[in-house]
């Protein structure tokens, strides 16, 4: 029995905030993956562009907050759209079975990161809190409003995505394309457009998320690469196929990471993430709440 639960509860709350970031990246992966069968390895970098463009607009130029949020979302959506056109769309001609997108989206991720470094420099830019609220305290543990805002954003995005995939025509179109692109084409679905739109929407979510995350993490060019891998582990834990799984996986990973850093040390963070991944691979390769199954033949 520890002397006080307070540090553990603080770590739990902070972990939910970080987990919310992982979940947002994971939901972006999931959205694109469901629609196109591609795992966009530049998803984390798209989030960093949200943070960096948000910093420029809101902090440097003093754009009103809501306008800045809208502009960031639109700008990153455009980047995502272009990325799909350049790095993924040309591959569909090469045959649907090709895994070359692993390489091209990986290339896009490092190129985007390098461009961000050239534009915004190597420093971490501090971003003030988006909402003016004092930290509150639960049982002696501190709760930062910025962390709660991330968590709320993740919950809201998960709810919205679930609603869209379940109840709208667009969502069903995406599911159909993911299930069998050839069959979807035969039934008159424009699968090329589905690919580009899913990239743009996922990028919009990442851009928005980047802005919301920036007050906690700061805005820096290199915040994407660790998120790329953490988001992947989140989706591996939660399971492919649903926004809810991505959300749960992200939060679980965030809390485990946060507590591990508290109990062990900061050096353990990546190692613990890897151990979580290997454990889930050994026990439940489909993830805790996975609905997606890779086809055998």
């Amino acid at each position, binding site marked *: 029995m520890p002397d006080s639960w307070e540090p553990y509860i603080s770590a739990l709350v902070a972990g939910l905030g970080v987990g919310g970031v992982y979940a947002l990246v994971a939901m972006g992966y999931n959205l694109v993956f469901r629609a196109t069968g591609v*795992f966009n*390895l530049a998803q984390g970098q798209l989030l960093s562009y949200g943070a960096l463009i948000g910093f420029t607009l809101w902090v440097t130029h003093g754009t009103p907050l809501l306008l800045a949020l809208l502009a960031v979302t639109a700008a990153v959506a455009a980047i995502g759209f272009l990325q799909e056109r*350049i*790095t993924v769309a*040309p*591959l569909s001609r*090469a045959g649907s079975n090709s*895994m*070359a997108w*692993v*390489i*091209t989206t*990986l*290339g*896009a*991720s*490092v*190129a*985007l*990161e*390098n*461009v961000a*470094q*050239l534009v915004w420099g190597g420093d971490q830019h501090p971003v003030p809190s988006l909402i003016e609220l004092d930290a509150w305290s639960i049982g002696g543990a501190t709760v930062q409003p910025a962390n709660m805002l991330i968590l709320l954003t993740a919950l809201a995005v998960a709810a919205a995505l679930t609603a869209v995939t379940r109840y709208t025509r667009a969502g069903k179109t995406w599911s159909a394309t993911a299930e069998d692109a050839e069959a979807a084409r035969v039934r008159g679905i424009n699968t090329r457009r589905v690919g580009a739109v899913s990239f743009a929407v996922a990028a919009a979510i990442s851009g928005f998320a980047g802005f919301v995350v920036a007050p906690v993490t700061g805005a820096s060019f290199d915040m994407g*690469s660790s998120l790329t*891998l953490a988001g*992947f*582990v989140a989706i*591996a834990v939660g399971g492919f196929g649903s926004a809810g799984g991505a959300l749960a996986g992200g939060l679980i990973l965030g809390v485990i990471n946060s507590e591990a850093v508290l109990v062990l*040390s900061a*050096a*353990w963070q*990546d*190692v613990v*993430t*890897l151990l979580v*991944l*290997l454990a889930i*691979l*050994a026990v439940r*390769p489909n993830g805790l709440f996975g609905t997606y199954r*890779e086809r055998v*033949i």
Partner: protein
Amino acid sequence: MTAVLKTIAGVPGGTAGRRPGTAREIALVAVFAVVAVLPLIAGDKFWTRKLFVIAVMSIVAVGLNLVLGYAGEYALGQVGIFAAGAYVTGVLTATYGWNAWAAMLAGVLAAALIGLVASVPGLRVGGWYFALTSLFIATVIPQTVKIIPKPTGGEFGLAGIDRPTVLGHALSTPALYALSLVLLGLSLLGLRNLTRSTWGLAFACLRRGDICLRSVGVSPTRVRLTIYLLAAVLAGVGGAVYPFLDGFISPDAFPLSLSILIIGATIIGGSDAVWAPVIGVAILQFVPEVSDRFDKYALLIYGLALVLGSLLLPRGLVVPLRRGASALLAAAARPGAGTGGGTGTGGVPAGGTGSADAAVARLTGAADPGAVLEVAGLGKAFGGNQAVADVSFTARPGQITAVIGANGCGKTTTLNLISGFYRADRGRVGVGGTPLEGRAPHRVVRERVSRTFQTPLLLPDRTVLENVMAGMLTRTPVGAATAILGLPAARRARAGFAADAADLLAFAGLAHLAGQEADTLSPGRQRLLEVARALAGSPAVLLLDEPAAGLVGAEVDELAALLRAVRGAGVAIVLVEHNMRLVMGLADHVVVLDTGTVIATGTPDEVRADAAVARSYLGRSRTEKGEGL
């Protein structure tokens, strides 16, 4: 010089059984020697260091090329294993005072071990999932030293890694560079031998997919573990020499960008030659050097290399380089016109023309009158769909047993159950009394039950001859070490494959196409080729899944003649087919399926007269003249 060009223009593993010319070997060594001596002549420290790094990274990239390029496995963790090799070597030398040579050996062994452990997820999940997992492992391994800062120096790095000594003298930087070149040369030589042996065929099958490899009777797990281990050893070799350049390593020396460099080098180099990644590494190391702000643009350049390399040069720089070298050779050969044998475009099979009689003799010799395929009470459901409810039949050697029925009646499912690709819910399958049910597909093939697929699973960019040779992999396993060392046994096995495959091609009437790539063949010829490959393992039972689909005119007659000859050799043939003229003309025995159940069996005439069959095929009223039946 022409020898160098020939080396570039050559198609390693592309033509079967060809004796590699010694001129090429000498040429390779000559290139090596020139590159090795260049910085020494110049006496330039900077370039010596740069070339050392290129040589080391090349060793790592050559390993990745084996996995990613040859076998199509997305095992991207090479840099993590490289880091492990470097750290084990460094820690043993600097912290524990080991002899540097012994520490290097230990580093390689540790890297091999870690590489095997890190590859375990690849046996469980495939494709992109493994790509991400392995990439993640690559970035985490260097971070683990922060957890154990005592022997490793932690995040601030490990200093004092003293160079190995020879006769009491520590190696100079040029000597270290020469060592790295020797190691690179040996790696290339070993991999060249391996990919030109019968293992090269197994890699090509794995790249086509697990099903392809299993259908030729080879365990994908065995091939995977072999290549993961070899790639890990190469990464470990690179890691074992790397720390001695500066005598210092830190976790920051193994960033994600290094993985990107190695992957990018493999992509832009190309996957068809063992030396291709060396070119890729050299380009990616030199190009940023041209601009004076190296660090600022390096990642952008690597990233663009990945994107553009994949999109514009999917088979890498090897292809245009080869073309250029061939063109130069052709130009050089024209005025001389005499001694040079030419490069050969697709390659002429070395086995010469095969003998159809020899192929028949081998099939007959392997035939076993007791090898009766017995299927009893087979059942399989997918969710609520009972694909196969109750299927029993017997297929005898020297007979053609046709399985017919409307679409969706369970014919292909039955074949998949017999050949082990599906696991039956109930029922028994056996050949000559040996039970087959529950066996993995490649083990079923080893019991000499081979098959073809509805969509031929050929190696599209390999020659027709090599496609047939792949079917022999189950027959004569060659040890990986034997193949790497290029021992006569490995060469004999490949030459034997080539000769027997040439016989089978003559038997199948495809001899004139032996040197062509399989995807240049018409669909009909591709089917004949797949039948020839299925015969390559001298099967007792041959399962054919709609071999006549897509065949036109005379091709159907060619197929019928081939199947008659195979039957004559004493093989039990199970023929799933829609072409009723072919079935009724060929079959000794017909099994009719409807909704997963056998509704009739008998000779073609008996089945034709069966009322239930007519109902199943033609609907309720039998108004048509039974054209199909």
